[in-house]
């Protein structure tokens, strides 16, 4: 018994210092562990380092990654050529088409101005012809490249927006719905501007123009593509007026639009308007 006691005492004397060191070491390990596992403590230590690094990256991004990013993008574009072309092609196409048409309109104006100053027999002959109802000189020159074309024509009842008749070279959209939407747009413009005596006359969409001609109980919409020149506009106006006077404003038709024979309108629209593009060339 005494032997055991003495042995225990000896152990205590021999390992006392070692025990103290071990306990101290364990405390430190606990502290480090807490520093790593508790988010706030870890953040307070790491945040300044990360901030410095972020700042450094921001300042030197171009030097560090510029070449890699450029190379990656080049490779990506190279590998996805088809997709890139597919995405850009329609946009570029429309831009070019719009630009060309606009340029032709400007060219047409410039040529007109130029020709007014030119004094030659040939020019006089063409000019005399244009004075007598023929196309303008500028138009003769410009028309060799781009022509306006009548794509569709609609006769629409004023209030209801119901389609009374239409003629179209090739139509992809439902014409009854087109007539309704046109009437809604017209009504909106009229209500929004609060000018009942004024009417919406033209709607432009890229290279298309919707020309609107109002009559008392109906209106006519002509969808025209290409640069609209005064000669074509006059011809279109004349044809619309002739059509309205000879087909719609007849004594029988005047009885009321409800009784209008739509087939008569449709048939005559084709007769009157199918030739308008041919006679331009």
């Amino acid at each position: 018994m005494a032997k055991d006691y003495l042995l225990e005492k000896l152990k205590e004397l021999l390992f006392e210092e070692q025990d103290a060191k071990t306990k101290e070491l364990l405390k430190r390990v606990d502290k480090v562990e807490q520093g790593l596992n508790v988010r706030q403590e870890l953040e307070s230590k790491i945040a300044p380092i990360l901030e410095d690094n972020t700042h450094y990256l921001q300042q030197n991004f171009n030097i560090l990654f510029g070449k890699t990013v450029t190379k990656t993008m080049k490779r990506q574009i190279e590998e996805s050529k088809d997709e890139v072309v597919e995405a850009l092609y329609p946009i570029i196409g429309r831009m070019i088409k719009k630009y060309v048409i606009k340029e032709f309109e400007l060219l047409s104006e410039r040529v007109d101005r130029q020709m007014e100053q030119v004094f030659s027999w040939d020019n006089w002959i063409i000019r005399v012809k244009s004075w007598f109802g023929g196309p303008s000189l500028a138009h003769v020159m410009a028309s060799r490249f781009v022509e306006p074309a009548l794509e569709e024509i609609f006769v629409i009842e004023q209030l209801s927006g119901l389609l009374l008749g239409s003629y179209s070279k090739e139509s992809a959209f439902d014409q009854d719905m087109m007539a309704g939407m046109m009437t809604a747009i017209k009504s909106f413009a009229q209500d929004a501007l609060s000018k009942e005596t004024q009417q919406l006359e033209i709607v432009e969409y890229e290279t298309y123009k919707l020309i609107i001609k109002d009559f008392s109980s109906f209106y006519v919409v002509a969808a025209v593509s290409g640069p609209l020149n005064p000669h074509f506009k006059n011809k279109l106006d004349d044809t619309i007026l002739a059509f309205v006077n000879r087909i719609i404003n007849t004594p029988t038709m005047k009885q009321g639009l409800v009784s209008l024979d739509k087939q008569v309108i449709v048939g005559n629209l084709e007769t009157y308007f199918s030739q308008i593009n041919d006679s331009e060339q």
Partner: protein
Amino acid sequence: MNSKKVILLGKYGVGKTSLIRQFMHKEFSDAYLTTIGVKIEKKIVTTNEGPLAMIIWDIAGESSHRKIPPSYKLGSQGIIYVFDLSRLSTYEALDRELSDLKTLLPNVPISLVGNKKDLLNEKDLDTIAAKLPLVDVTFISARTGENVEKLFHDLALAMVR
């Protein structure tokens, strides 16, 4: 083919566009997308007088139809006035709304429609029906499609009569 303009009126959120969608495409969506201005749809309905093209103007909802441009309504040959059975505010002033419409468009058939029938029970529906100014009201559900076809078919018949 004979065509008729039909306008769809009612306060916002009552389900006018959902009704059209159910009628046109037999579809329903819980997503609410407000109508901007006006949207035009066309559907051919067969009547005893032959086929009839209904050109339907789905007009954006307002707190009162008085705020809708009159030109959208003029020339209409049929009116569908929709209210929400689960929202009292959409049908409490029906008297005035319908009277205005009758003054603006005399002799034009009006279909009064209570939508969202699927959210109420029969007892609630009877209570609501008793408060309404018109006896002839159709309770429908744009969600389930209940009475939707009938509503348009009845209006088509009233228009060709």
